[in-house]
């Protein structure tokens, strides 16, 4: 497909019941009221010349190129700022307009370098295009006067340059930063001839810029341009695909030269991102061809042996024979497998099928175990299905937004921009978080209430909020009566109204003033559409599932479900958390969240797969490791996941891995878990295969192959090969056939196919006969389970308590520039922003320990000890410290413990009792890690490998 250029309508789409008919260049066109003449012209098939207008931001009217004539009116108004009116007759071409436009272009070009042939934007420059459109043939003013041609270029950002000599000061970049991204990092400095774009008083890198790329995309010249385009030139074709980073699931155009990516550009028709992006998806794709990629299969006898490159046949054969040997020796249940939320739906589906059908057990799990498994349990119990209730666009109708345990500006930046836009429009914000996340106070956004609770007291806070709703008569009785199980509601109402759940009683536990809880509760219940957005700060607790149910209770009690603008919305960490859960990756359920013990469902799969299946649940990831330490679990197939870095209590994880006799890793890189592996199967990046990802709003989006797999096989093909070698043949010629099977066996996916995805762009499940184009908002008119079920959510303090020895609470999180275990982003220039994990500590706690900014500190818990640099900040409350886990040598999870959510086994990452002290050297674990890494990652190249 040639390079895709979306139509630019010049000004944003308007939605209105009133339609207006006007005439443009003799063509009649009908548009919604509020539409600009410029946009109406595009609808009529007429392109009005323009420079400062683009359709993802409001009209600005500065370039004077889009002038038109309107019959019966004087002058030549700008078509971007002139609204269509009934009966209006517009002319976009006339000798007068041509002269005016040429004059405008003359002025622009008189202060613009004439280096088009060597310019990076040659062939992709709107200024160049407009010079051609208006027929510019001369510049009467010459080039000798005052100009900006010697202005200094800013190359500080690793991904793009800013060349003010080429700037026409159209303000598109400034407006993109404000309107699209909502960061307000750019401004126009100076007046008149002195006007220039500025990133504050500093260069781009040191400024507030978050490198989302919106300004680069908006720039109509080469002023802001990607360094990759400067290096490589323009792309010759594009492939529309889905980002491999967070759970927003942005659609991108991979712009290619042959099989090489030139740049990733957010796709305007992408329904999750509407043409916006963040620094990760837009720029941090270089990992896909990083020199660390392992592209040849490898095996070894012992983990201390060097890796030996072998053929695919030998590697697959070794893995299969080892799994068979282990099962013969230790029993059918002695092996299992894990997939990642970085895998496609088709890959996750195949791995769990291999485990259930070829291994003959249910020891399958996915990394959603350690992030959003409580969401699955909690929402299924209360609403009847394990998914968020809304689409992202729903936030545009929200009046009160409650963000709980999530940090969208860092972890879900593109959705955060959409949320911030709604907040700037006047929606009110409640933030429930121990830290002062950016949303609490940032340019043009300020939370009405920040409830800085103590880590581990989520359930107490949500109960206190619900207590206010119930005891102050704020329940939506009509909604509850019509939509909910009344007996369960009455039991809950009685429980929640008890004085022990009041904000006043719970304040000493939560640390949140009762008055703030009461005010926030009243706002949520009475402020219009109330929408809850939450993240891992909710789920990664011993009461993670209870908290999810607590939020569901609150939403039901206030009637904030079943329509646009409301809902309970999990913000999923990785791109395919929702999908990996949907695909039956958990040990207790098939696709579509049906328990393995359900006879009709099991029979359905048995008939389709042609094999008897087990009806008892298998091992979850932490329990696989427990069983490995116990000696009853000996073999593991891991696709795309790095449990040695991401999972809690690293010492326990690595002890489990080390106790196994065959660990098979399928990945892009020799990751931390691969240190304990015996077979390495080179995986393929998202650019190298076909499939689908399902984002946080249940949106199934296509992943499309842009280049050949570097290792020779797509991941799903590797699983097929392994299954075949295990004696359970799989027959697929293309990933689309896997989706056809999923659709055949899963009622909520019945209408999904690759062909349908090509047709619609993306689909939100459920998609079936009842909803052939998918379901943006769930539970309209009734819950998936019938009646919504209130659950009693008793607050139970975690057993992870601070003590004299461990007096501080460690909580963990994410940062904008890095992603999960960092395997991808650490292999990009994103490291410039975050080259190491740091420990945030409050000045009070730091001073008590003699710790200053940048000091090396040791952090110790009952599980282990590591060291990292201190970041002294008031962003974190006294008594609490915070870090990330993006760098393996930091070993943040050496410190986290084995405690988990009661229902799902999701680790309690967010609460660990620790002590922090000054350190002079790395911890013993870190030294051991570096030595182990050195010993276990040697590769003997070219020893018998064939392609």
């Amino acid at each position, binding site marked *: 497909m040639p390079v895709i250029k979306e139509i630019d309508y010049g000004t944003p789409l308007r939605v209105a019941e009133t339609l207006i008919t006007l005439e443009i260049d003799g063509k009649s066109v009908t548009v919604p009221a509020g539409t600009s003449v410029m946009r109406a012209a595009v609808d009529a098939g007429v392109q009005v010349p323009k420079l400062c207008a683009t359709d993802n931001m409001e009209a600005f009217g500065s370039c004077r190129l889009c002038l038109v004539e309107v019959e019966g009116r004087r002058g030549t108004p700008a078509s971007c700022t002139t609204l269509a009116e009934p009966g209006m007759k517009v002319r976009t071409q006339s000798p007068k307009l041509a002269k005016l436009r040429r004059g405008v272009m003359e002025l622009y070009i008189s202060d613009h370098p004439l280096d088009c042939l060597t310019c990076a934007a040659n062939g992709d420059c709107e200024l160049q295009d407009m010079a051609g459109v208006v027929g510019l043939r001369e510049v009467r003013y010459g080039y000798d006067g005052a100009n900006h041609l010697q202005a200094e270029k800013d190359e500080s950002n690793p991904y793009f340059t800013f060349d003010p000599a080429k700037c026409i000061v159209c303000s598109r970049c400034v407006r993109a930063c404000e309107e699209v991204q909502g960061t307000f990092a750019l401004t126009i400095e100076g007046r008149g001839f002195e006007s220039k774009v500025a990133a504050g008083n500093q260069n781009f890198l040191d400024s507030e810029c978050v490198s989302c790329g919106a300004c680069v995309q908006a720039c109509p010249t080469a002023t802001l341009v990607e360094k990759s385009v400067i290096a490589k030139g323009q792309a010759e074709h594009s492939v529309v695909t889905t980002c491999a980073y967070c759970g927003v699931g942005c659609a991108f155009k991979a712009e290619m030269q042959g099989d090489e990516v030139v740049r990733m550009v957010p796709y305007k028709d992408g329904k999750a991102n509407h043409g916006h992006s963040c620094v990760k998806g837009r720029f941090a794709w270089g990992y896909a061809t990083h020199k660390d990629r392992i592209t040849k299969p490898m095996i070894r006898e012992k983990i201390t042996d060097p890796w030996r490159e072998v053929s695919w046949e030998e590697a697959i054969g070794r893995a299969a024979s080892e799994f068979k040997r282990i099962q013969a020796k230790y029993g059918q*249940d002695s092996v299992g497998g894990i997939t990642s939320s970085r895998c496609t739906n088709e890959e996750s589906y195949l791995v769990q099928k291999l485990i259930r059908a070829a291994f003959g057990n*249910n*020891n399958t799990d996915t990394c959603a175990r350690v992030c959003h498994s409580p969401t699955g349990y909690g929402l299924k119990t209360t609403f009847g299905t394990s998914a968020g209730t809304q689409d992202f666009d729903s936030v545009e109708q929200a009046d009160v937004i409650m963000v709980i345990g999530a940090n969208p500006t860092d972890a879900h930046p593109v959705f955060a921009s959409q949320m911030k836009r709604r907040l700037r429009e006047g929606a009110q914000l409640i933030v429930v978080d121990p830290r002062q996340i950016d949303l609490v106070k940032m340019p043009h956004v300020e939370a009405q209430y920040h409830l800085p609770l103590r880590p581990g007291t989520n359930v107490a806070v949500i109960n206190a909020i619900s207590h206010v709703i119930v005891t102050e008569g704020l329940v939506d009785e009509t909604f509850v009566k019509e939509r909910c199980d009344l007996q369960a509601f009455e039991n809950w109402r009685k*429980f929640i109204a008890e004085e022990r759940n009041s904000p006043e009683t719970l304040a000493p536990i939560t640390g949140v003033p009762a008055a703030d809880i009461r005010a926030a509760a009243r706002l949520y219940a009475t402020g219009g559409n109330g929408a809850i957005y939450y993240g891992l700060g909710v789920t990664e607790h*011993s009461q993670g*599932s*209870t908290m999810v149910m607590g939020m569901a209770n609150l939403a039901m009690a206030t009637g904030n479900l079943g329509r646009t603008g409301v809902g309970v919305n999990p913000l999923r960490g990785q791109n395919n958390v929702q999908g990996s859960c949907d695909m039956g990756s958990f*040990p*207790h359920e098939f696709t579509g969240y049906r*328990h393995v*013990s359900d006879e009709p469902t099991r029979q359905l799969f048995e008939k389709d797969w042609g094999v008897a299946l087990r009806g*008892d*649940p*298998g*091992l*979850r990831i932490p*329990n696989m490791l*427990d*069983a490995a330490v*116990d000696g*009853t679990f000996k073999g593991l197939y891991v696709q795309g996941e790095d449990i040695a870095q991401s999972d809690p209590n690293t010492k326990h994880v690595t002890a489990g891995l080390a106790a196994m006799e065959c660990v098979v890793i399928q990945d892009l890189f020799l990751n931390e878990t691969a240190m304990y592996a015996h077979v390495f199967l080179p995986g393929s990046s998202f650019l190298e295969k076909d499939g689908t990802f399902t984002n946080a709003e249940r949106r199934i989006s296509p992943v499309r192959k842009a280049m050949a797999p570097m290792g020779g096989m797509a991941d799903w093909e590797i699983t097929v090969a392994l299954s075949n070698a295990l004696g359970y043949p799989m027959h697929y010629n293309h990933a689309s056939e896997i989706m056809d099977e999923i659709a055949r066996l899963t009622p909520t996916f019945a209408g999904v196919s690759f062909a349908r995805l090509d047709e619609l762009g993306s689909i939100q499940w459920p998609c079936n006969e009842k909803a052939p184009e998918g379901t943006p908002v769930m539970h309209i008119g009734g819950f998936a389970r019938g009646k919504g079920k209130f659950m*009693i959510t*008793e607050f*139970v303090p975690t*057993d992870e308590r601070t003590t004299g020895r461990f007096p501080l609470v460690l909580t963990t999180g994410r940062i904008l520039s890095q992603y999960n275990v960092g395997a991808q982003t650490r292999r990009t220039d994103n490291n410039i922003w975050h080259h190491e994990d740091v420990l945030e500590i409050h000045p009070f706690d730091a001073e008590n320990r003699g710790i200053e900014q940048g000091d090396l500190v040791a952090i110790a818990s009952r599980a282990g000890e590591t060291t990292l640099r201190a970041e002294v900040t008031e962003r974190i409350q006294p008594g609490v410290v915070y870090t990330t886990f993006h760098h393996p040598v930091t070993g943040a999870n050496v410190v986290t413990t*084995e*405690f*988990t959510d*009661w*229902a*799902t*086994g999701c680790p309690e990452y967010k609460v660990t009792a620790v002590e922090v002290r000054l350190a002079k050297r790395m911890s013993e674990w870190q030294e051991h890690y570096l030595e182990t890494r050195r010993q276990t990652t040697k590769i003997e190249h070219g020893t018998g490998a064939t392609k």
Partner: protein
Amino acid sequence: MNTENMIHMANQIAQFFASYPHEEAVAGVADHIQKFWEKRMRQQLREYIGQGGSGLNELALEAAKRLG
């Protein structure tokens, strides 16, 4: 699995269901363990109960006795 960890997990489940009427709570705990614990874990729990079940709270103990 580490015995202490097993006890902790079973007690946590019981703590959630403890808010419900006794019979519902016992059934809830037993059902949860039956649906989500792998057979080795359930077997370990049964064996531990056979040894007295020290450390398990009453609800967890009662529910565990119902496991198939």
